[in-house]
């Protein structure tokens, strides 16, 4: 298949709009050719993950673009970095690496990207609408954009995200196109109690299991009550993009391209049908923990960044209790959400109760946690999946309620009752 370009793409390749636009267009067109795309399409927004420092190559690339005067052509948000600019007291990393990280962040701001520093750009005031073509990076944001917003993005990452933003163009391939958005795998739940399905904790566990079962296919979850909340869909998607490479899922009655099972399948027969039992969910929950040691030192919530509603729920669960001595309790969120919950008085209540608010970054790859001995607890399947490898700590996965109760008493306690039937 040959790539067909428009006149403006050809002009940019010839250097008509300067060296930065030429380089970005070269990368997008070469990527399109490598993907087997037959053309490029216009995008209306981008979310960039290249701003997270991990090595010289990304910094060299940003320098090259910014030095040549690159500017993004579409509204562009920035993902987490490896620094918490609002809470520098959290920093425990290498100062030289911190300097390079900061430099990288500045270069993206110079190119006109908004310093949002969040992995949950869908929690910002403006977000893509149904059917909008965008170029998003960050696996949880990609799956949310496609599945929950009905916007259209491929799984972009380093280099590609910023080149799409600078050109306003993306390869016409993959999840940008109708034919790749239909579900090919049907997931049905069998014998899972209504009580478990009514709990937040069910959704990251189900997502982790789905990622393992489907890899990079597009699944549809059938048989749940319609109207599952955005926060639950977010947790499910983030988990499935960690244990697998899911870029999009459907849930009948809850996601916009799945009013019915038939709509999600776009009239095709499913390639595969999988039944998930209560025992499967129980096993998936167990796989998210690496220890049974109840010596709790750390609790980390907010991966992906907590929403206003999730922070409100945390405030409610804590009530007037405090985090026990010897337990460090972190909540990661976006700076915009922190601003909002500060106005509500919730942030100061949490801080007074012994909670540390983390913004702009995340605790699963940035050295913030001081004590990596003992057990860390989280309500995030994504955090549970990555943190042991990145930080060298042991983790117990639990519900948000479990995390709060454990933090208050100073050791791991989990409500096994909801899993008893499993």
């Amino acid at each position, binding site marked *: 298949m040959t790539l067909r370009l428009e006149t403006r793409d050809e002009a940019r390749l010839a250097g008509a709009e300067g060296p930065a636009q030429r380089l970005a267009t070269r990368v997008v067109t*070469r990527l399109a050719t490598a993907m087997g795309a037959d053309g490029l399409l216009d995008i209306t927004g981008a979310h960039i993950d290249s701003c997270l420092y991990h090595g010289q190559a990304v910094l060299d690339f940003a320098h090259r673009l910014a030095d040549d005067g690159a500017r993004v052509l579409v509204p562009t948000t920035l993902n987490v970095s490896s620094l918490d600019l609002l809470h520098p007291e959290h920093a425990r990393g290498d100062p030289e690496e911190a300097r390079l990280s900061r430099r990288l962040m500045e270069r993206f701001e110079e190119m006109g990207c908004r310093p949002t520093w969040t992995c949950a750009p869908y929690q910002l005031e403006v977000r893509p609408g149904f059917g909008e073509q965008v170029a998003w990076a960050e696996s949880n944001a990609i799956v949310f954009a496609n599945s929950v917003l009905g916007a259209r993005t491929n799984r972009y*990452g380093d280099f590609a995200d910023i080149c799409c933003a600078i050109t306003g163009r993306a390869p016409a391939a993959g999840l940008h196109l109708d034919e790749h958005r239909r579900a090919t795998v049907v997931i049905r739940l069998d014998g899972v109690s209504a009580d478990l399905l009514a709990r937040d904790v069910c959704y990251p566990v189900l997502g982790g299991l789905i990622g393992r079962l489907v890899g990079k296919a597009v699944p549809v979850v059938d048989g749940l009550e319609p109207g599952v909340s955005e926060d639950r869909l977010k947790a499910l998607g983030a988990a499935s993009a960690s244990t697998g490479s899911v870029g999009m899922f459907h849930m009948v009655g809850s996601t916009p391209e799945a009013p019915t099972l038939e709509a999600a399948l776009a009239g095709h027969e499913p390639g595969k049908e999988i039944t998930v039992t209560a025992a499967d969910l129980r096993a998936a929950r167990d796989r998210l923990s690496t220890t049974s040691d109840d010596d709790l030192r750390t609790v980390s919530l907010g991966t992906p960044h907590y929403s206003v509603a999730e922070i409100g729920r945390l405030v409610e669960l804590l009530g007037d209790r405090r985090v026990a001595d010897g337990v460090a309790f972190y909540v990661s969120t976006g700076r915009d959400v922190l601003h909002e919950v500060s106005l509500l008085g919730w942030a100061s209540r949490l801080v007074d109760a012994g909670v540390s608010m983390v913004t702009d970054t995340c605790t699963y790859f940035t050295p913030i946690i001081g004590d990596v001995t003992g057990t860390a607890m989280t309500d995030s399947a994504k955090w549970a999946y990555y943190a042991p490898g990145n930080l060298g700590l042991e983790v117990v996965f639990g519900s948000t309620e479990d995390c709060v109760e454990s933090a208050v008493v100073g050791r791991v306690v989990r409500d096994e009752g909801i899993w008893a039937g499993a």
Partner: protein
Amino acid sequence: MPDRGATPVPLVAGTATGEVLRLDEPLSFWGGLETVEGRIIDQRHPQVGEMVAGRVLVMPFGRGSSSGSSVICEAVRAGTAPAAILMAERDDIIALGAIVAEEVYGLVMPVVVVPPEAFEGLETGAMVAVGVDGTVTVSPDAGGPA
């Protein structure tokens, strides 16, 4: 799109020669490859500890995070990348890392989708040459397992 056609598809075109390292399982470059020496560091990968630098890496497809592109680009910059990567399927994360290395540093690491029969014949230890059109030639006197 015909990924497994009869002719090779160079995702990044160039020439290379080297000894084949065939991976038993797909590798995520992010978290799986260190770029100072060019070794596999993913503890869950069966070939952890193997050196990829300068070898012709044969793998069915890539796995894992899109940050793999920058790891590949960094390895090419540092001179610790494979001589070439030969795959059975397209992989845009791997291709992108090599594309940017060529654009920014002028260093070419060929990435080729190889037809099925040729792919199956690529054994660890064989000396191969990759042509600019993606053809892979096995040297007859230096084959066999390492």
